[in-house]
């Protein structure tokens, strides 16, 4: 193990030093939340394919029992977060950008939290082969706990096919207010390093970086202590400067290796695999106890809750239970956000369940920045401050102009799809233009346009095929008719000839 000085890092273009607001939630101990009466487990936890339920209403399920199977390569299994009876499988609203209702398995818990007994620890994971380990990780329904709930098996498969050389554990957690990874790292640094070792073994890697943001001295210390015990000479702990958004996947890869993830590509395209520290901890839990992923640590914070802190929460727990565990709402509570203040998703109803990508529940008053200007939104003055701080070197001022003035065909050239929606540009815009939301809209618009273009081209293809077919049929028909005619005339001639032929004398 070695600790790399921060100076070895590559410099990210742009980024912002934001007020952390981390102490609000990070200082207390990690506490649990009681098993709720009802768990609502969403079958659609990530951008991939929804899981397929394998239980039916009325079935009794045990904690850790498989309740839904992964569907296809980009999906993950789901397991019951506690014991009880399946009440229904029906559409329920879950937190998301579009606030849609998605199919959910609803479990009435029985309070026993009885565990399924067919789950066993893996005493020596290093004796297993790569395929066996990957399968075990897939079977445990492990997903990335950084914020996208990307199925870990899919990521590992992709990485092993692409051939990678570096594992990066992301303990940066750069977004203000969020401290769930910090809490995990302080409490379970040893488990995280054990998980890292298993992941490295599974992919045969010789290099692993653990990136920890410089504003987390306790986590840094915990890792150094744990690393002294773990004694893994392929592991390097790296302190990452506290500049938002250093914890973005592509950003962290660049900071540590100087390699740029190609536009539209993945870190595996440039030999890197990035996992959140929480994902490594899930792998360790699997090896140590055999238990699948059924819970996560969630930060509950903001001036809208009485006692902010970090909580170990079962998936499917209503957000209102979580708020209650954090002392309930204060008078200032006005907005509820899943995630942080920069990239989070607004939630209207606290009855919605905790999903796998829910790293933080932020409850705030109207505005978080005390000295925020109250000026209205104004036209862009092209000051270029947004371009100056953009961590992917986009020019938001040009993109915004292209989108609003209507030259939307220019957006791909300006790099719309490279936008990571970090929100930095909004923060420096003196005209108070909601740039990030504009780009989300523009992406959605582009997607819709692509979809329609594709549909149109498919329709055209169908039309052309039919036309070809019709034409083919017509020509063959014509040929057949001509043939028939020819044949008919030939037949007629021969008939006439035959008729003219003197008949054999009858006998």
């Amino acid at each position, binding site marked *: 193990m070695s600790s790399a000085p921060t100076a070895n890092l590559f410099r990210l273009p742009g980024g912002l030093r934001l007020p952390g607001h981390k102490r609000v939630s990070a200082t207390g101990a990690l506490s649990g939340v009681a098993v709720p009466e009802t768990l609502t487990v969403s079958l659609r936890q990530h951008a991939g394919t929804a899981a397929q339920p394998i239980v039916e209403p009325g079935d009794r399920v045990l904690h850790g029992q498989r309740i839904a199977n992964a569907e296809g390569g980009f999906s993950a299994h789901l397991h019951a977060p506690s014991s009880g009876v399946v009440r229904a499988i029906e559409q329920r609203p879950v937190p998301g950008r579009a606030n849609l209702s998605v199919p959910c398995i609803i479990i009435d818990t029985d309070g026993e939290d009885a565990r399924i007994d067919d789950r066993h620890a893996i005493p020596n994971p290093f004796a297993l082969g790569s395929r066996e380990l990957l399968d075990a990780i897939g079977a445990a329904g492990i997903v990335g706990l950084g914020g996208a709930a990307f199925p870990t098996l899919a990521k590992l498969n992709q990485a092993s096919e692409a051939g990678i050389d570096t594992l990066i554990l992301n303990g940066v957690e750069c977004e203000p207010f969020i401290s769930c990874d910090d809490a995990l790292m302080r409490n379970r640094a040893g488990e995280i390093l054990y998980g890292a070792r298993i992941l490295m073994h599974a992919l045969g890697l010789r290099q692993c970086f653990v990136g920890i943001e410089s504003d987390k001295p306790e986590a840094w210390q915990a890792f150094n202590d744990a690393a002294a015990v773990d004694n893994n000479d392929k592991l390097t702990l790296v302190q990452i400067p506290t500049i938002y958004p250093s914890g973005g996947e592509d950003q962290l890869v660049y900071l540590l290796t100087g390699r740029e993830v190609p536009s539209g590509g993945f870190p595996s395209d440039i030999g890197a695999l990035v996992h959140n520290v929480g994902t490594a901890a899930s792998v360790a839990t699997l090896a140590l106890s055999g238990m699948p992923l059924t819970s996560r640590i969630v930060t509950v914070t903001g001036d809208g809750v009485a006692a902010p802190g970090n909580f170990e929460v079962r998936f499917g727990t209503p957000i209102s239970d979580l708020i209650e565990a954090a002392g309930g709402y204060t008078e200032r509570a*006005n907005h509820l956000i899943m995630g942080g203040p*920069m990239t989070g*998703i607004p939630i209207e109803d*606290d009855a919605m369940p905790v999903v796998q990508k829910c790293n933080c529940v932020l409850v705030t008053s109207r505005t978080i920045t005390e000295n925020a*200007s109250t*000026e209205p939104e*104004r036209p862009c003055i092209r000051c270029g401050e947004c371009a100056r701080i953009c961590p992917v070197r986009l020019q938001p001022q040009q993109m915004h102009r292209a989108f609003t003035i209507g030259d939307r065909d220019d957006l791909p050239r300006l790099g719309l799809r490279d936008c990571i929606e970090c929100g930095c540009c909004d*923060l420096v815009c003196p*005209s*108070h233009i909601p740039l990030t939301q504009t780009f989300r809209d523009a992406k959605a618009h582009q997607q819709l346009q692509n979809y329609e273009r594709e549909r149109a081209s498919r329709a055209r293809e169908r039309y052309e095929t039919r036309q070809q077919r019709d034409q083919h049929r017509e020509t063959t028909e014509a040929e057949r008719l001509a043939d028939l005619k020819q044949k008919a005339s030939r037949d007629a001639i021969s008939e006439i000839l035959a008729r003219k032929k003197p008949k054999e004398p009858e006998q």
Partner: protein
Amino acid sequence: MKLARAATPFLKPATGVGAMMREVCLALVPAAILYFLFFGFGILFNIAVCVLACAAFEALALMLRRQPVAVVLSDYSVCLTGVLIAFALPTYLPIYVTFTACAAAVLLGKHVYGGIGYNPFNPAMVGYVVALVSFPIAMSAWLPPGLGDLDYTMPTIGERLAYIFTGNWPAPLTAEAITRATPLDMVRTGLRASETFGEIGNSPMFGTFGGYGWEWVGNGILAGGAWLLYRGIIRWHIPVAVLFGMLAPATLDTLASSGTTPGPAFHLFSGATLLGAFFIATDPVSAATSPRGRLIFGFGIGFTAWAIRTWGGYPDGIAFAVLLWNAAVPLLDRYTAPRIMGHER
């Protein structure tokens, strides 16, 4: 419990366009004070008249365009346009010329394009140039600085006001007797009469590095510009490039002519060089927006202004250079965009 819904990010900026523009105006206070000390009340009168006239024209345009007047006026951009026109115009000027400049700046330079954010040309320079080509004599009639041992007594305040409001100097004063060529003009005429820069510079109209009095106004502008850079309201690319674009050829020229042509110090502290570099070319709306684009834009302005001063028909060329390069901005922006992370080098 139901909660309010609003898009992230929730952290909001502390500054706004209004605060920025206000600070740019305030950054010109030191220069205005020095200007007042050397040249009399004209600058203060011009600032007041220009700001009020520009605001009035903007209010009119907004009403015609059915836009919220108070909201838009509170962005202070029209106030800055007024202040910049005041600095660009001769210190004492018939008031209808001042009004013409303000009307052209706000109406032709800004609102015909859709107001703040959409104007391709720098409004203050549009106003200045319209006045310059429409009233060439009034626009080149400058009073010399009133301090120092020049063989000159400033007209009285009453006489100056009379000129402003009637357009004629009260008898027995005449424009020929009252006004003086600016240092830039003297250099231009002198060089064309085959004098050397050294000979011209011996006139009491000249101070240590530039025109007497003017160089101190220049120092004030420089201080204001440094403040804006320190505060991050403007970025270094444009001012540095403008100054480089002007001073590099001036230096080469003066070296090649062994000092018979004006050197970099004179160019720096004369005419609108410093005002142009820090306050005019840096207008974000009409300037290039990418860092490389801004360097080319600034260099182009500096070089073009030097070329106009050296070979052109006008003693100063900042205004024309700015407008010319404003027109090149869309092209610059298109071809100087930075390489996006993850895109091919």
